[in-house]
Each structure stands twice: as structure tokens, then as C-alpha cells.
């Protein structure tokens, strides 16, 4: 951290609790209306985090709607247009939104290329889980890991740090504004995280089953035990032997909760729940995937409440 940035951070720390965000937002409003930075994020989760940092000075759009599978998204002509116009492009990385590479190549703007000043890979500096040591190709030096890292609220600190750096890079005049917003957001996040941790404390170590391995980071942060997955390989329906194994595990370990996302087939989850006496809990892995998950914080509010309810409701 440069001395100047450190000073700004210190200043922000001193100011943030004293001045409510609304006042400086309204003060700046007339000036920014004309000059909002256009940011394109690949997912709604990143959109929400960019909005948390950028506030009134950014206009963020997402490319993949929540509940669509970002891993096989098919880009549209408008996407190319939006990317070309963007002041900043933010992606999940970790092979999650590989289709963006094709769009960026087509847009052919040097600053938007990998390593360019308007390109942000939000997975930078994240401690990845489930790394298998198999790099997909050039440009993926870290090899693929589990890409659902935004589901650990502590990772939001790292992601917003990366976002802050990028916003300050392209809009240095407002760097302090972004820093203040980030710190205020992290304060709110930390308070909420204490509540979430408390709410899920009784679930620590309780075995659960998930439809697909999306919850590694969430599990690590809240100390949850995902003991099995219905679809061990994404896109391949479970074999009878695998289902029998899961049923046996549910009976011997007393597993009562099966976690699925809204876009994952309910039938298979329900099949297990009916046979072994459990219940299906629908969680949102992305902002907006379920009603009432409008931003990053409410995403966790919803998931934590749904899990806790599922646990206390089961016999």
C-alpha cells in the first residue's frame, strides 16, 4: 500500500462512522449524473459488489441473469456492444465465465484484454478451494478451482479490495469516495456475518447433501458439512448405485437436509428426501436467484434463514 493510499484509508476510517453515506451521495449526485462509470459485471453477485463500492458513481449491468447457468451462457449481440462501451469489465474468473474471453477478443479493445487497465478478474488473491491442479489452457495459471468463491462473505473483503483498486485506477479523482463506501460496506457485512454465524452455529458439522458442489466456500466459512452431492459430475445425471449410496448415507448419518438451487432439478432431490425422510431446502447461489435476494447481503440473509429454518423444522 502506498503512503498516500494508507493515508486515505486512515482518513476514511475516521470519517466513515461519522458521516452517513446518504449525505455525500446526494452532494455528489448532480455532478455524477452525467458521468457515471459504466461497469459490466458477468454475474449479479459481482454487480452487487461493484454497486456497494461504486455507489452513485457507477452504472452496473450484469450479463448472465441469476438462475441461468453462467458456465454455458450464450453471449448475445448486445453483450458485445455493452462491453465495448464499458469503462470496466468485471468477471468471476476461475473458468466460470470462459465465454467472456471470446467476447473480449471480438471487442478488441486493448484496455479490456487480460491485464488491461479496464479488466478485472475478481478471483485475484482469493484462496481457492477444490483445486485439482489441471490448468485448462494458457491464461489460467492457477488451474481451475471451485469458482463459487463469492459465497464466502469474508472473500467479499478481497473482492471489493480488487474492485476498489480498479475503480481508483480509472477514476482517481473519486478514489476516496470509493474507499469510504467500501469500508462502510465491510462494516455492515461484518455485523451481518456475526448474526449469520450465530444463526448457523447449531448446524456445525451436521451432515447435509447438496445437488451440486457449489457450496464449498459457504461451508468453509460457516463450518457446514456437505457429506455428498446428488450430481457428482455437473450435467451427468446420478447413477442408481450413486443414489443408493446417498440413501444409505442419509439413513446411517441421519441426513435430513438436501440443498438445491432453483435451477437444479427438484425431482431428484425430492426423490431422496421422500425415501429417506428429509426435506429439500432451496438456496440461492447468486444474487436475485430467489425472491428477496436483491443484493449481496440479503443473499446471505435468505440462505442462512432458509437453512436454519430447514434444520429446526426437521424432526
Amino acid at each position, binding site marked *: 500500500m502506498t503512503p498516500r493510499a494508507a493515508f486515505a484509508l486512515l482518513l476514511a476510517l475516521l470519517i466513515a462512522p461519522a458521516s452517513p453515506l446518504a449525505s455525500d451521495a446526494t452532494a455528489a449526485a448532480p455532478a455524477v449524473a452525467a458521468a457515471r462509470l459504466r461497469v459490466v459485471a458477468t454475474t449479479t453477485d459481482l454487480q452487487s459488489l461493484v454497486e456497494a463500492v461504486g455507489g452513485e458513481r457507477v452504472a452496473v449491468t450484469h450479463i448472465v441473469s441469476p438462475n441461468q447457468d453462467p458456465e454455458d451462457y450464450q453471449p448475445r449481440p448486445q453483450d458485445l456492444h455493452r462491453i465495448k462501451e464499458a469503462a470496466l469489465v468485471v468477471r468471476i474468473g476461475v473458468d466460470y465465465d470462459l465465454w467472456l474471453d471470446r467476447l473480449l477478443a471480438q471487442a478488441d479493445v486493448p484496455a479490456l484484454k487480460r491485464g488491461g487497465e479496464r479488466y478485472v478478474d475478481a478471483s485475484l488473491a482469493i484462496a481457492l478451494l477444490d483445486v485439482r491442479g489441471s490448468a485448462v489452457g494458457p491464461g489460467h495459471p492457477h488451474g481451475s478451482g471451485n469458482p463459487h468463491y463469492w459465497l464466502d462473505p469474508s472473500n467479499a473483503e478481497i473482492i471489493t479490495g480488487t474492485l476498489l483498486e480498479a475503480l481508483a485506477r480509472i477514476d482517481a479523482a473519486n478514489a476516496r469516495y470509493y474507499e469510504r463506501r467500501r469500508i462502510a460496506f465491510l462494516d455492515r457485512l461484518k455485523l451481518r456475518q456475526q448474526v449469520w454465524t450465530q444463526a448457523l452455529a447449531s448446524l456445525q458439522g451436521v451432515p447435509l447433501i447438496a445437488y451440486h458442489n457449489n457450496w464449498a466456500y459457504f461451508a468453509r466459512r460457516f463450518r457446514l458439512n456437505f457429506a455428498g452431492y446428488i450430481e457428482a459430475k455437473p450435467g451427468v*445425471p446420478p447413477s442408481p448405485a450413486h443414489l443408493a449410496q446417498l440413501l444409505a448415507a442419509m439413513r446411517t448419518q441421519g441426513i435430513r437436509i438436501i440443498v438445491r438451487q432453483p435451477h437444479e432439478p427438484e425431482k431428484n432431490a425430492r426423490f431422496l428426501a421422500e425415501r429417506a425422510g428429509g426435506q429439500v431446502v432451496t438456496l440461492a447461489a447468486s444474487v436475485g436467484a430467489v425472491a428477496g435476494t436483491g443484493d449481496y447481503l440479503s443473499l446471505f440473509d435468505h440462505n442462512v434463514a432458509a437453512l436454519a429454518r430447514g434444520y429446526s423444522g426437521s424432526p
Partner: protein
Amino acid sequence: MTDAIALLWLPLLASIMLVGIHTYFGMQVLARGVIFVDLALAQLAALGGTVAFMLGHPAQSTGTLAWSLGFALLAALLLASTRRLSSRIPQEALIGVIYVVAAAASFLLVDKAPQGTEHIKQILTGNILTVGGGDLFTIAPLYAAIAFLHWLARERLARSASGTSSWLWDFFFFGSFGVVVTSSVALAGVLLVFSFLIIPAAIGLLYADRPVIQLVIGWIAGAAASLAGLAASYAWDLPTGATMVCTFGLALACAGILRPLRRRSMASLKTAAGVLRGVVALCLAASALWLTLAPRSDQPLLDSFESLAPELRAAYMSASERAVYDEADVYADRHRLQIERLNTIEANSRWQGRALDDFEVRRISSFLQSYGEMRKGEEFVKREVRSRARERSRWWLGATLVLLALLTYPEAAVRARRTLRVRRQL
């Protein structure tokens, strides 16, 4: 074993019921030459379901069902009315057009409501493994009623199949078929329903001339293929629907190969065996050629022989090569175990004992990557040693394969000698 039975008896029962009605419809479809009509009907039903979803009906509600059936009947109307009109264009072309347009239209609709993707999937990719008892109670009376109606109207339908009756009978046929397909595709998925429809009917056609006997043969073959598919998917831990489609395909292949046996004449049996030997010999000769031309590339035949009996490598690898190969194999396996061990430690630390901090997680990840690279290195060594040995011994290996080819199909040598003799005489 009891686990397997508890899990598989409902899918088996469902398969038998589906085979029951689809074999009959399959015979009709083959007679009318509208092979892919089920795909068009199912896709249009899915489009109807998507429309229902956009209007706010929950999945599996009466509203959704009504919309799906409405669209399927619309497709039936379209198919029945165009059957007479399309003397210039084969009806199969129109069926294809209905299918692609319905598929594309549902994607366009879903584009407006992302949650709908799951909806279309639910309609078209059933999972036979997870059918419930309730599903069977709905389809059993439905199929029985349709079968009864078709039995009553059997003469009319036979005339409409040959195109000498009113289009209303065509509509009755396509409409009732649409109802069946809409329900069966939701249970078993498009691929499996297509197999249920065409393959048992085709096997029946191969072995009998009278429709009733064709139907019975189709039923038996379909039930047997279903049982084999379910058992194989349990035994080898494979996805059920895909396995069943493959066993149905295999059943048709076997039926085709064994068909000459039906006449109980030695001559036809000999021809069949000859063709089979010819194919085997051709494969052997082709891989001999491929081995001598490109010894370092994939050798499908040699590779599969070696994976069945690794001792075969001793034939063309020297003792030192074998030692290097085996050592690399041992190390590759050791690295794999290390990767698994580290993954287990990390996964368990998420909820058990002391939580690992980010630094420790990153350290594990970098170890995982190193082990992954080392394992790849060992695999490379194995491949390289094998390629070099093959390159060195390609001539005699190729010659052996050619010799094997000649042994399986000696007629080739005889014929070649005869041609040579004829040339010399000329």
C-alpha cells in the same frame, strides 16, 4: 442386492409400461414413415409448458398440463392437415421444421424469464430412475384408455396409415400420440422415449410379419433391454437413461445380426459369421496399417488390448522400458493418492477440528497443483516409453496384426492368390 431391487423396481415397471404403449405407436410411426414425430410433438408440448410458465402457472399444475396438451394437439392438427397437402415435400421435413422452430421459440421465450430454463428441462429431460409410484398411477389408466380406443378404431387407423381415410383419423392418431408422448417424455426424457418408440417396433418388424406377433416380440425385446439397461447402470455405476438407450441400441444390433438364424439354414448362418469375421479382419488390418504409418499416435485397438491385458506390453517393450513404465505408473498412482489425501484434509477442515486459514488453504492448493503436474509428468513418461517401443517394433507388430487378420478371414488370402493367378495367365 436388496438395495438395487428397492431402487430399480419402479423404474423397471415404468419402462415396461412405456415399452407397452410405445411399441404399438412405434409400429404405426414406422408404417406411416414419420420417424421423428415424437420429437416434434414433445417439443411443442414443452413450448406449451413454457407459455404456461410465462403466464404464471407453477410446474406440474393443471394449467401447465392443459397448455402442454393444447400445444401437442395443435401440432397434431398441423401434422394431420399437412399430410395430404405435402405431396411435394416429405412429411418428415415438416416434422423437422416443427421441431426446430418449437425448440428455438421456447428458448426465445425463456430468454425473457431465466427461471424457465429449468422448466423446459423438466419437460424434456425426465429421469426414469426417479419415477414415483404416483406417476405410474396417472399413466396406467391413461395408456389403457388410449390403447382401448385404438383397438376399437383399429381398422380405420390401418386405412388412415395407408392414406385412404379422412384426415380426422390422422388427427386422432397424432393427437392421442401427442398425449402419450407429453406424459412419457416428462418421465423418461426425449432420448429414452425415442428408443422405446422405434427400437422394439423395429425388432418386431425384423422377426415377424403379423402385427400381433410383431407387437409381442417388441414387448419382450423392450422389456429385456430395459432390464439389461437398468442392471448395467446399477452394476457399473452409470447414468440410467443413457445406459438404457445404449442397451436398446445393442438389442437392435443383436437382433439384426441374429436374424439369419431364424431360417435355421446353415448357409445364412455361414454368411453372417463370414461378415462378422470380415469386419474383425478389416479392423485388424486397418490398425496394422495405422501402426506402421503413425506409431506414436493413438492406437485404439492396441490400447484396448493392453488395458484388458497389461501383460501384452511385455511382447514389445524391453525389460528396462517395462521397469520405467511400471515405476512411472506407481508414482502416478502415489501422486493421485496424495492429491486425494490433501483434498480430504481440506474438505474435513471446513467443519471439523481447527479451521484452516487462507494461508494454509493456499499452501494445500499449491501442493495440489504440484502433485497434479507431477502426475501429468509421470503420465507423459508412460506415454513416451510406450510410443518409442511401438515405433521400434511397428514392423513386426504390424505384421502380426496382418497375420491375425488373415487367420480370422483366410478367404482374403485365397482370393488374392486367385486374382494373382488370373493375372499371370493373362
